[in-house]
């Protein structure tokens, strides 16, 4: 990786538009290059300043009213059995958008580094987060093997209360929790250990309350087991075998089910 390439990719990095392996490659280059480090810092500062400044406009009420008069009158809303999550920001809200299939005559650089689709994008980021968590001092924000310590710790840090379940008896030791970021949004990570292996369980809110059965995938050698339940998306990531990770997921889901009923 050279500076010229990095000059463009540094933006894709700060915008979270790189897949995990390229993000790492860029990060590795930046770490060894004072010039690119300075670039990255200065763009981060700029981003921070822009975030603080109120740059958006609000449509005037008169415009809203005019549109309401001009647009044809709507039929009354169809009865919906899904409780709307108004006022609560869905953590991964933005992910549902995008990926319009347009013929993108993108440069080779882009086709190589851009994420393939939204789902894969999230999973790449989840793997990145998992990798970052394995670096020294990054794994756990709250150290506890007690679910009654870990669960309340998340209060006020997330717009979701992740179920924290002690699976020690089932062979997966709860070792703590962590606040992580995926696509600039806070996401809860519950950390378990199986022998010497770390399992990160990421939990994010979703507006879809339907139960979605588990899917297993492998990205960069890591296994990911993904499922949805009661308005939350779960991703369990680890380097343990797919069968063991599946076992973890099943035990977690079973315990969550028991908690719900009990």
């Amino acid at each position: 990786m050279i500076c010229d390439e990095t000059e463009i990719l540094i933006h894709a990095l700060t915008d979270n538009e790189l897949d995990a392996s390229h993000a790492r490659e860029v990060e590795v280059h930046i770490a060894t290059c004072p010039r690119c480090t300075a670039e990255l810092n200065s763009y981060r500062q700029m981003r921070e300043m822009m975030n603080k400044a109120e740059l958006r406009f609000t449509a005037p009420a008169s415009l809203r009213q005019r549109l309401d008069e001009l647009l044809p009158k709507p039929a009354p809303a169809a009865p919906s059995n899904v409780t709307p999550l108004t006022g609560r920001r869905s953590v991964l809200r933005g992910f549902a958008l995008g990926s319009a299939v347009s013929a993108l005559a993108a440069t080779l650089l882009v086709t190589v580094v851009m994420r393939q689709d939204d789902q894969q994008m999230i999973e790449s980021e989840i793997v990145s987060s998992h990798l970052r968590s394995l670096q020294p001092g990054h794994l756990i924000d709250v150290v506890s093997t007690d679910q009654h310590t870990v669960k309340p710790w998340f209060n006020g840090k997330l717009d979701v209360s992740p179920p924290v379940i002690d699976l020690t008896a089932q062979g997966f030791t709860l070792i703590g929790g962590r606040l992580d970021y995926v696509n600039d949004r806070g996401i809860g990570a519950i950390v378990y250990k199986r022998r010497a292996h770390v399992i990160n369980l990421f939990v994010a809110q979703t507006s879809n309350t339907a139960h979605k059965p588990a899917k297993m995938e492998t990205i960069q050698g890591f296994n990911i087991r993904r499922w949805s339940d009661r308005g939350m998306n779960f991703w369990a990531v680890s380097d343990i075998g797919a069968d063991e990770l599946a076992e973890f997921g099943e035990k977690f889901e079973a315990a969550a089910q028991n908690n719900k009923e009990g």
Partner: protein
Amino acid sequence: MQSIIIGPGQGQWLAAGRAHADSATVGRAAMPANTTQHDPERARRFREAALPHLDDVYTLARYLLRDASDAEDAVQECYLRALKHFDTYRGPAMKPWLFAILRNVCRAEYARRAASPNAGIDDTAEAAEQTLWREEQQTPEAELLRERDASTIRRLVDTLAEPFKETFVLREINDLSYREIADAIGAPVGTVMSRLARARAMLRSAWLREQEQL
């Protein structure tokens, strides 16, 4: 599959829209589309899909046109056109689609301004509005600072050349992903990336010059 209903009233509206594009005064005089026969279910779906993005569309219009009243007219025209083409909308993302329509509306407005010698931005009106906008705000010190930054950034963004400004606003202010920007402006993602890099570099040096002068 919805059928497209063109009643007499709506035909008139279409004609009005065309006359608009010709004289290129966007918006205001368009016929209310609800005077015509319509499908309430389609209307509901359109409203639910498009109206939540009103602030976003208006924000982009403000940056592209640099004038509050032109922006309002452009947004109105954008929504009417979007409604007209709603049957051919194939998703999945509403926001980039609305932005693409808004861009076309703004193009027409640029053409009108270029053709009319007196159509430049009215700086006094802009200035007056800025003052008004300032007075509405709370004034603790941090707030003032933030506001000064905001108006400086807005001004600097305005000085960017059109394609760079547009890409920058879509990313930083409208919060679109690279792919959504590519869809909205009809350019490859590679172009989005290079424009964004250029825009940020230009904005950063403009900002630094500004700080030196303080």
